[in-house]
């Protein structure tokens, strides 16, 4: 039975969070530490906030710019995903999402300039970002996965050893007190009342992403940077990995990978996967562990 109303719940980086601890309530210092971190993360890296680092280069000229250590870490990882997907995953699509209407004002209507959008080129070396012109970065799911792992770090630092961090449906969990795993249902993409299967989560991250929840006017939030259009063919992706960040990186990369590359892409991120295709079939990694309702 679903345990409703349990745990510490709050809203952050645009989604609902829940932290469950097995063996006692979450103390106030932990609650404050977690919400403070999420709030600051949002202020620093949300593309919806004009003063964030993700938006700092919106009107920048080509050149080299210093960035914070944490933004450099995030961009370095994003650069790795960009290489892994032959350039198709790129956080610099932030500008394209804005042109398509998914902007800070939530105008939700494509602007005339969407057809002319040119993906900015960027490189990160250490804490120096090189760009060839204006750029807006959208860290998306991989940023959220990173955030979930940092919340786990906060809990570990404060002495918690048996917990689950749910950041809007992406999860990192240790084991429960007795060593048993957490039992997690996987929502079928686009079917809010349907589970595709279940997994037993223990010292692992889980990420689930689909193209349904952020739809507007023929667009959704996973966009092809060169076709200037939402991707087709894949309804959603689920991934299991050692960390939530790895799992979220895997879902981001798999959306942009060819079927024949799924296993290699997942392997490079230590992930196992389900790829829900638009034709109704699901591609499953052979090492997937969990029940699937076939």
């Amino acid at each position, binding site marked *: 039975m679903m345990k409703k109303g349990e745990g510490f719940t709050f809203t952050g980086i645009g989604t609902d969070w829940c932290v469950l601890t097995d063996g006692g309530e979450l103390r106030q210092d932990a609650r404050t530490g977690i919400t403070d971190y999420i709030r600051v993360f949002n202020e620093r890296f949300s593309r919806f906030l004009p003063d964030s680092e993700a938006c700092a280069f919106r009107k920048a000229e080509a050149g080299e710019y210093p960035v914070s250590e944490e933004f450099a870490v995030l961009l370095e990882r994003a650069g790795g995903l960009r290489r892994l997907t032959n350039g198709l995953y790129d956080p610099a699509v932030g500008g394209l999402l804005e042109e398509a209407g998914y902007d800070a004002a939530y105008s939700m209507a494509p602007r005339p300039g969407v057809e002319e959008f040119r993906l900015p080129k960027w490189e990160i070396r250490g804490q120096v970002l090189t760009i060839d012109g204006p750029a807006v970065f959208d860290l998306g799911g991989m940023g959220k996965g990173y955030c979930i792992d940092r919340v786990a770090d906060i809990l570990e630092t404060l002495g918690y050893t048996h917990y689950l961090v749910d950041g809007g449906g992406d999860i990192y969990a240790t084991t429960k007190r007795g060593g048993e795993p957490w039992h997690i249902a*996987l929502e079928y993409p686009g079917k809010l009342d349907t589970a595709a299967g279940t997994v037993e989560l223990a010292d692992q991250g889980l990420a689930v992403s689909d193209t349904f929840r952020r739809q507007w006017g023929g667009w959704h939030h996973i966009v092809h940077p060169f076709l200037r259009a939402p991707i087709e063919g894949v309804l959603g992706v689920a991934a299991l990995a050692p960390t939530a960040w790895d799992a979220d990186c895997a879902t981001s990369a798999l959306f942009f990978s060819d079927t024949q590359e799924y296993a290699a892409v997942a392997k490079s991120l230590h992930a196992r996967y389900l790829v829900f295709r638009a034709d109704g079939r699901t591609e499953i990694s052979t090492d997937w562990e969990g029940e699937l309702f076939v």
Partner: protein
Amino acid sequence: MNMLKSRRNLIIAILAVAAAVLLAYKYVPALLQARNDAAQGVTDTDPVVSREVSTVATYEAPGGTDKVRFTIGLDAGGRVVSVKASDALKGDEVSENLATFSTGLLVVIRGKKLSELTAVDRVGKSSLTTAAFNASILDLQKQL
């Protein structure tokens, strides 16, 4: 050339049978479960193939090493009703190298009502959209 082609086809046919046996062995529990479900009156809207599994086989062809993807269709009772072989893995060099890791399976997931699941701690899912996003969509819909 024809001789090479027929030899290749023979190899593919042998591999197809081998792959079918391998997959059937690997999915014996699932097949038995499917048969049980069928015996219990579970109906299937698709009268032929209700789900598919696939694997990639590597074999030595006259021109060198080659790969074939086999997709096996199962009916509601878990019986193999089709075996398809394709050269889908042939492509550019990068894809070919990556394909050496590709052994994914392809199935049809029917799903189960979340309300029917017991002892679930949480639901893994795509992020809910923000209130601002939802309000904007509603506002746009009203204008249509």
